[in-house]
């Protein structure tokens, strides 16, 4: 390939990537733009990439006059609780699926797949009945239970694939070195699975953070509403308060973004390089 052809190829790749990035990030940009646009300019300026005057009034209003801080706290509890519960269960189940042969393993895999087959809307009514009878509607714990149940199967498969990627030899070497299976898991397997655990945590956290359907159906009291439900309160009968809604949404993005910032170094794989011949 000549130098110019190579440059052309590089340029095309950069162009394609920028196009994709622009497409993916534009809604976020628009969110930010609307959140800092004063109400009077929202409809009067036409379509502009940035308002002629900026304001943080929407943020101030949302933080002081709305129930947003409550929603925020509720969402943090639900998403954090779900992420921890699911990751713990999925790590243990995934390890068993990856390392042990046991009776009924195939049946369990099929059952777990079946749980993923139904549209959630179909399950809302029966879930509501079940949760109501044990008093878990209108309750953050109820949401954690439901989210955990729905996320565990997928997370288990995810964790299993991470465990599968860790050579069995490593644990066996540790067990010969003097470790029990559990100690080998803690000292050898767990540190090497951190990227997988981080990915699972992040995945489940964001899924629970943004879930709307069950949060809407199982919760009726604003005091225990999560943030996606809370966003709907900005929609009233006659108007939508776009500025405040977008300001709330931007703030809701912060924890998810922060969370990924925390785990991103574990998301970068390659920790297992050098374990075995490679």
């Amino acid at each position: 390939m000549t130098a110019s052809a190579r440059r052309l190829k590089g340029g095309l790749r950069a162009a394609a990537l920028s196009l994709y990035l622009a497409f993916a990030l534009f809604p976020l940009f628009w969110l930010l733009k609307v959140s800092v646009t004063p109400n009077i300019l929202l409809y009067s300026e036409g379509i502009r990439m940035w308002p002629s005057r900026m304001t943080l009034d929407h943020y101030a209003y949302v933080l002081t006059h709305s129930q947003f801080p409550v929603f925020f706290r509720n969402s943090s509890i639900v998403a954090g609780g779900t992420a921890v519960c699911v990751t713990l269960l999925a790590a243990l189940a995934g390890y068993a699926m990856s390392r042990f042969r046991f009776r009924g393993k195939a049946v369990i895999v099929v059952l777990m797949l079946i749980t993923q087959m139904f549209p959630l809307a179909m399950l809302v009514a029966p879930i509501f009945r079940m949760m109501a009878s044990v008093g878990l509607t209108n309750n953050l714990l109820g949401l954690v239970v439901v989210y955990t149940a729905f996320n565990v199967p997928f997370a288990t498969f995810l964790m299993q694939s991470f465990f599968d990627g860790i050579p069995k030899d490593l644990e066996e070497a540790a067990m010969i070195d003097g470790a029990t299976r559990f100690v080998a898991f803690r000292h050898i397997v767990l540190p090497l699975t951190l990227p997988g655990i981080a990915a699972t945590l992040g995945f489940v956290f964001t899924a629970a953070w943004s879930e709307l359907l069950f949060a809407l159906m199982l919760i009726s009291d604003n005091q225990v509403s999560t943030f996606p439900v809370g966003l709907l309160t900005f929609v009233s009968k006659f108007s939508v308060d776009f500025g405040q809604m977008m300001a709330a949404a931007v703030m809701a993005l912060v924890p998810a973004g922060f969370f990924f910032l925390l785990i991103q170094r574990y998301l970068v794989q390659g920790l297992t390089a050098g374990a075995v011949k490679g």
Partner: protein
Amino acid sequence: MASIVIDRVRKSYADVAVLHDVDLTIDDGEFIVLVGPSGCGKSTLLRMIAGLDDVTEGEIRIAGRPVGHLSPKDRDIAMVFQSYALYPHMSVRDNMSYGLKLRRTPKEKIASAVSGAARTLGLDALLDRRPKALSGGQRQRVAMGRATVRSPKAFLFDEPLSNLDARLREQMRSEIKRLHGQLKATSVYVTHDQIEAMTLADRIVALQGGRVQQVGTPLELYHTPANLFVAGFMGSPGMNFLSATYLAEGDGKAVMLPDGTRLALAGRPPLATGTRVTIGVRPEHVAIASGGDGLAVTVDLVEPTGLGFILHLRLHDLPFKIFRQGDTSGVDRPQVRVVLPAARLHLFDGDGRRVALA
């Protein structure tokens, strides 16, 4: 250090038996090599000694103590894996000291054991590196070091050299032998490479199809293989086999090849005339006839090895090999005549078992 006794051990997965009644006594300080083709059960046997696989039936005793109920950690053995199985998130030093730390060995003792092993294996400069920053040969050495620091009762090796290139494999082979000479540790070494088996072993255990075919010193297996499998497996290039019929008439020291050629034997086998037998002769024991005697064979291919050459021939349209030292002069023609010396012929009966010559 300890002896290992394998007492009528069987192993089966569901209904499939992979090891049948294996009996073996490994003496204290002995270097035993389990050799055989892949799937013969040699690794399974090793893993059962280590406690990584369960014994279906029978008993394994290490230092006289049955270990069936003991987990790997309580057997006080060390194992070198084919993949090395170094802990990737630990430095070389931590890899080597992990076993000692788990046993709550005092810090000073760990440090001296690790530095001692590192010195023996030439790892001093690498102690703070992670495994991924090491070459294949260095990783192999660390795996050896990790096994030796604990001074266990026995060493188990699971094809430890098969991931190395030929030159390094040769070098590590001699290092393992030297190390065994120093430590005098009971060792069980699994390989499919008969050269490793020949060069390292005090005694070789040849396995096939989950059964022990022969146990003996390397030279016993080479000179008096118990059956066709061992005869064909040990030695490189492999032994030549010819089918023949035993002739009891006369002095009873001859067999007849299918084309009617008679071959002299060194002794009289306890067989009836007309018994179908297999004659075996190693490529390095076949002589090239200078005159008109011997068998006429067609030259198929010449493979020079530097030291000598391997001659691929067709004898009665069957492949037949000769190894000779020196250059190929004298064999650069389409046909040569070969002599199968009577003293070098191995005789096997219809079931493939060695027949002793009286």
